[in-house]
């Protein structure tokens, strides 16, 4: 009788979870967590650099120059995107937390998050990145 053919090891541990095909909610959560941790990391840096304004203004200006250089602007755009996504999706969560009936519409809310994100985020990104072209020209 024809037996099955062996196809090698199945993923174990975290690998198992990566093969799970979650829906919008799981993606939303993964982004939310990643962006939250990212923004948190930046804010540690940011409080420190603000502190430098009093302690060592030259060092602050040096950092400021890095922030406004072309690679720095790219970073700031990413930061803004993370913060903005996190804020919008955070509101999506808070709204459901306080009105559980809205969970029935979590997909619709998820779409609203992305529409808002791009509608405001794209022009915003343009404003931040514009100087790069101007420098290049």
């Amino acid at each position: 009788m024809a037996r099955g053919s062996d196809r090698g090891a199945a993923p174990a541990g975290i690998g198992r979870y990566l093969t799970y095909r979650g829906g919008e909610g799981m993606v939303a959560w993964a982004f939310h967590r990643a962006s939250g941790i990212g923004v948190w990391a930046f804010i540690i840096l940011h409080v420190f650099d603000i502190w430098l304004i009093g302690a060592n203004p030259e060092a602050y200006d040096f950092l400021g120059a890095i922030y406004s250089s072309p690679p720095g602007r790219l970073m700031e755009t990413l930061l803004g995107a993370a913060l903005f996504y996190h804020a919008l999706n955070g509101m999506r969560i808070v709204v459901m937390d306080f009105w559980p009936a809205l969970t029935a519409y979590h997909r619709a809310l998820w779409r609203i998050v992305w529409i808002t994100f791009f509608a405001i985020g794209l022009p915003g990104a343009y404003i931040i990145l514009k100087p790069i072209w101007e420098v290049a020209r």
Partner: protein
Amino acid sequence: MSGRYSRSGRPRPVGSRVDLYVWYAVRISSLALFVLALAHFAMTHFVYDPADQSAEWVRQMRWSSVTLRALDWGMLMAVLVHGFLGMRTVLQDYVPSRLRRVALGILYALALALFVLGTQVVLTLKIG
């Protein structure tokens, strides 16, 4: 009433409300941050250009108003509450329980450090 039935497998709750307060604190601070953090970002990136914002500029323009200073300090507080309690959740998820106390200790120490640094600069930076 509690105590009558077995909870098979899970330890009996100690009646602590910490996690309840944390949950609400994260949510309420997020409402504050929604306004403050987004406004702050818009201000630094859209209203002005980061390239112009030297230490001198901050001292003379942005932080010349006590209100703006207070708002930024408020934002710092919200971030300490929100970001650090958020990170507490993340650590509770991924750090094995035997290391958790240490990890949370480091997290809270970091929060205290930021509180000190941030408050110091807000209070001591000369106006104008």
